[in-house]
């Protein structure tokens, strides 16, 4: 199996607080990885480091693409995204007063090959590219089941659909790695089931490597191939769901130390 992401001794300090401490992980192409840990363990901070929102205090993040290795630690978020890394947000961050279709179109930005001048002068490339974007975005919305809502404002969607749109938007980037930050948070069992199917489906279809943060243990144990466990910013365990279930450190982290 080929490695796609290699994280080495990654550390992030906020003042005196060490939010992520000396974390290392190796992710292979096509894997579905779960990232779990108690609240405040540093999971989202780790995502923010991997996607460039925060700059690491130390350590390396290496993205391996077609046998080329790129250091992405400390790069700007948009640069990392354009290398094929997409994400969703824990506290949904859609472009609220834009339509569902426009939300997806924004994410296709990198693949649009006309500039400001062509847009203002309405050159032929503008029409050609816009047509392509429109078709592509609609196709994607059909796939996640939001096509009929394409002209609604994102803010008017029900909660579960907003989470779906976040995933659709991330897919529009045509990523190789997809980070999902608590995709099932606030969903009912039916929605969670549909989400699980969607994740499976897109992963197959787009040959994605997926890393997800989730508190719904049944979901994580069911779909993840490998699980990393964070606690107090440190990586305390990693392994298959079965191994993790039996790991005493993990049990302690979740249930507290026995007295």
């Amino acid at each position, binding site marked *: 199996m080929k490695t796609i992401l290699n994280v080495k001794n990654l550390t992030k300090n906020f003042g005196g607080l060490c939010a992520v401490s000396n974390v290392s992980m190796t992710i292979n192409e096509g894997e579905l990885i779960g990232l779990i840990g108690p609240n405040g363990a540093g999971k*989202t901070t780790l995502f*923010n480091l991997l996607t460039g*929102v925060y700059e690491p205090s130390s350590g390396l993040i290496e993205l391996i693409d077609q046998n080329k290795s790129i250091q992405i630690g400390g790069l700007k978020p948009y640069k990392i995204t354009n290398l094929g890394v997409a994400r969703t*947000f824990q506290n949904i961050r859609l472009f609220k007063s834009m339509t569902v279709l426009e939300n997806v179109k924004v994410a296709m930005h990198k693949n649009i090959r006309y500039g400001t001048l062509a847009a203002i002068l309405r050159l032929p490339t503008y029409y050609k590219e816009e047509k392509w974007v429109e078709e592509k975005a609609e196709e994607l919305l059909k796939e996640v089941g939001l096509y009929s809502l394409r002209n609604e404002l994102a803010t008017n969607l029900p909660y579960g659909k907003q989470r779906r749109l976040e995933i659709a938007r991330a897919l529009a980037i045509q990523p190789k790695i997809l980070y999902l930050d608590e995709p099932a948070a606030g969903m009912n069992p039916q929605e969670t089931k549909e989400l699980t199917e969607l994740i499976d489906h897109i992963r197959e279809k787009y040959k994605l490597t997926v890393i997800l943060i989730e508190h719904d243990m049944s979901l994580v144990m069911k779909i993840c191939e490998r699980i990393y466990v964070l606690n107090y910013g440190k990586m305390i365990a990693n392994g298959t769901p079965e191994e993790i279930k039996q790991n005493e450190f993990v049990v302690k982290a979740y249930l507290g130390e026995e007295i």
Partner: protein
Amino acid sequence: MTAFLQQLVNGLSLGSIYALIALGYTMVYGIIKLINFAHGDVYMLGAYCAFLITTYCGLGFIPALFISMIFCGVVGVLIERIAYKPLRHATRITALITAIGVSYVLEYATQYIMGSEVRTYPKLLTSASFHLGPVTITMQQVYIFVITVILMVVLQFIVQKTKMGRAMRAVSVDEDAARLMGIDVDKTISFTFLLGSALAGVAGVLVGIYYNSINPLMGMTPGLKAFIAAVFGGIGSIPGAMIGGLFIGIAETMVTAYGSSLYKDAIVYIILILILILKPAGLLGKNVREKV
């Protein structure tokens, strides 16, 4: 060297006034994250209030100062209640536009009532002066500096040692958490406006005395400069506002003395842009990062 020291003294007294106005900006920004554009105009109202009291009621400096403080404090609270409170959770741009609107209303309502002409300020303080070595210091400058320092100490005491001050600090850190702890957030915010506006009122009176003249649009430029002083010191920080105010005052006097008075306003804006680029949190400010 003498000239330099002389300018330093002049700069200190001008800077004290800026510092007084800057405090209002910094406290209000600290607590509701709003650049209260109307703050400069509250200071103008303070100057007019004392002008009317001393000219038509024949009262002296001290009563005029207190009445102006109270008047401005009340005006500040009213502005907050009427214009800003409904917008507590609106976007920053919305709140800022509102503040600009309030500023317009205050300026032009004053102009409508009092006329647009420049008024000569009554002589409320002795114009006597004394020499300290080669440097001439007027009693007015001494008063301005002493009053500012006293108020600053009182303010620092209120914010650090009293219950209300603790509430102010709590609300500025986290409004919702403060509310859950039983703090009356609305009252605390109003109190902040009261304090800040009262200080602006004092500044208005002092400026009237210092420059001898007032007009309805006098609040705009010093207001902006005081805001810049607050940004320079680190917005939200009370000692920062003091340092920023003095620095801006001294910088302005120095440019007037050694460069050209035509550029005295430009230098302040250049300082602003430099500080925003080099150290946006200001000298004593804290970096705040957005939660993702």
